[in-house]
């Protein structure tokens, strides 16, 4: 493997996984539940990493980043049910954002993609909760989670769109971004 391949297939995904884990640790310290005590409502900072992965990396690598992040997150401080929650939310959010990202342009911005991803994440978590808890009554929290994903998705989406101009000038990312542009054309 030459250095470029090593960077895009191992180093960069590895950095992204650790960054996502760090962000999920960070958001656990944020007292968001003091304002909105809704089970499962999080700011979703790791979503910024998923957005970046979808933007700069092939879909398969982005998928690997999400799955490894969920596995390691459960391994370090979670349980089996935490793994089910984060996988269901993370994968559904990835799928929805991957489907919407090609439409980003004049009519849709990255913030909208992120809001849809946040809503999908919360919906996925609720379905996981339905199976773990064994009762549909958890869907009583759906309106709060949907309204909440509007705020959290907007926050993470705007954060990424603020960072993207600087990120797109990073020299090491140039070959990746060129490749991504060619593959979507």
């Amino acid at each position: 493997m030459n250095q470029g391949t090593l960077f895009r297939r191992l180093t960069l995904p590895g950095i992204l996984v650790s960054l996502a884990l760090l962000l999920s640790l960070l958001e656990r310290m944020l007292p968001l539940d003091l304002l909105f005590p809704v089970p499962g409502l999080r700011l979703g900072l790791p979503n910024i990493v998923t957005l970046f992965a979808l933007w700069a990396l092939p879909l398969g690598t982005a998928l690997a980043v999400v799955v490894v992040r969920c596995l390691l997150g459960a391994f370090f401080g979670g349980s089996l049910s935490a793994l089910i929650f984060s996988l269901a939310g993370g994968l559904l959010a990835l799928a929805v954002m991957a489907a919407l990202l090609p439409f980003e342009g004049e009519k849709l911005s990255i913030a909208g993609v992120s809001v849809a991803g946040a809503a999908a994440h919360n919906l996925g978590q609720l379905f996981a909760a339905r199976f773990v808890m064994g009762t549909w009554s958890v869907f009583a929290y759906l309106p709060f989670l949907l309204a909440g994903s509007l705020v959290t998705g907007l926050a993470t989406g705007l954060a990424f769109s603020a960072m993207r101009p600087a990120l797109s000038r990073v020299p090491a990312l140039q070959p990746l971004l060129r490749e991504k542009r060619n593959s979507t054309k």
Partner: protein
Amino acid sequence: MSLRRDGAARPNAAVEQDQKRRFRSFGLRIGDLLLMAGLLVAAGIAWGMRSNGAETAAVAVVSIEGERVRQIALEAESDGMHTFTDRGVTYTLEISESRVRMAQIDCPDHICIKTGWADRQTPIVCMPNRLVIELEGEGS
């Protein structure tokens, strides 16, 4: 000469205005706004679909991992703190005037405690302990 200057000035002004407009709207586009409006409508529909019932309930049902482990007859139970242990989970409920809330449980976020008193529409959910408290039946 003046033609060329005009030709150069016009697109620049348009670009500048566009950037200003985008900055003011955080770069949001029509699709974003439609998506967010749709999400709010969906939240409203989900709110309307939450089961409506009597405000008071006869029994509180505690489930852990989908299994009913305890039924508490709220009107028969004395007011105050009640500590139970089911399937290895120890939790304390406060019962007062046929209402119930989570008072103490071992979990990292304590969201179920912050939820406050349970009502017919909102069950108490403790995700880390896979515990749900639902209200059933009609109180007198």
